[in-house]
């Protein structure tokens, strides 16, 4: 697992207050991990802060699973980060 992926999973576990081992790649935030729409916004804010990113609302809607988040963040990391 990449460093980025580990950081993403740690943020998800912390913000959704769940065990890290529940944060599986295929897990969907709302259906599987008990997130509501505000929690998704909180997660996105946390990702933006942690990775120094700006995630537009249109992208937020597409981030449905843990893997979606990892993929989005990995492909948008600013140079020299992670």
């Amino acid at each position, binding site marked *: 697992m990449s460093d980025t992926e580990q950081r993403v999973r740690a943020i998800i576990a912390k913000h959704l207050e769940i065990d890290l081992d529940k944060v599986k790649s295929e897990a969907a935030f709302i259906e599987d991990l008990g997130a*509501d729409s*505000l929690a998704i916004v*909180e997660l996105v804010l946390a990702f933006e802060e942690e990775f120094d990113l700006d995630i537009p609302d249109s992208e937020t809607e597409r981030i449905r699973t843990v893997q979606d988040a990892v993929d989005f963040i990995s492909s948008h990391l600013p140079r020299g980060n992670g």
Partner: protein
Amino acid sequence: MFDLQGRVAIVTGASRGIGRAIAVTLARQGAWVGVNYARNAQAAEETLAAMRAAGGDGELLPFDVSDSAAVTEAVDGLAARRGGLHIAVANAGIAVDGLLLRMKDDDLARTFATNVNGALYLARASVRLMMKAKWGRFLAVSSVVGQTGNVGQTAYAASKAALEGAARSIAREYASRNITANVIAPGFIDTDMTAALPDAMRSKILEGVPLGRLGSAEDVAAAALYLASNEAGYVTGQVLNVNGGLYV
């Protein structure tokens, strides 16, 4: 009761009048209070001095509430320095009075820019930090005029009524994060804003106040303290009228 130790607050328009009284009251109860003002630095210093005289403390935050970027920067800065933000009071307001027939586009725009947009900018910047704290109190100071309407105050009344709809929505949207949003609607309060009225109009208004006196800024601040406190945790989306019975 109403202990605010450890809380970080911001009050807009806190250099004078109701805003100053709210800032002093929150500081007296232990909150660190960001004292926002737009222009009157000397008056804001007096607010800070009054807070310190009351045993509290805080800092000055000069910015124009109608400047979205400035609001966000000030709120984020305060939270970064003090480790969070818990209480936000949207008090800054202007009254551009006159018959609607005579109101300029700019009069309407300025009224809404400060009274409505300013409150929403503050709320937007604050709830984000309140979500992090898992505790928050958003208050907006409206006016009895938002409920009754008033000749010569169409724009002002509309802007104040707007705050009620905003607070009800914020109340619903962030309830799950332990954030409440409420409105205080003062009646005829003895401040610079009302001192500008002619004596004849003042006595006419007083006839309609069952409690028979003007309200004080401290009357309003006491209501703000309650709504900002832990004790008011089950009160959200409400309008608390502090008007001496002027409108019941």
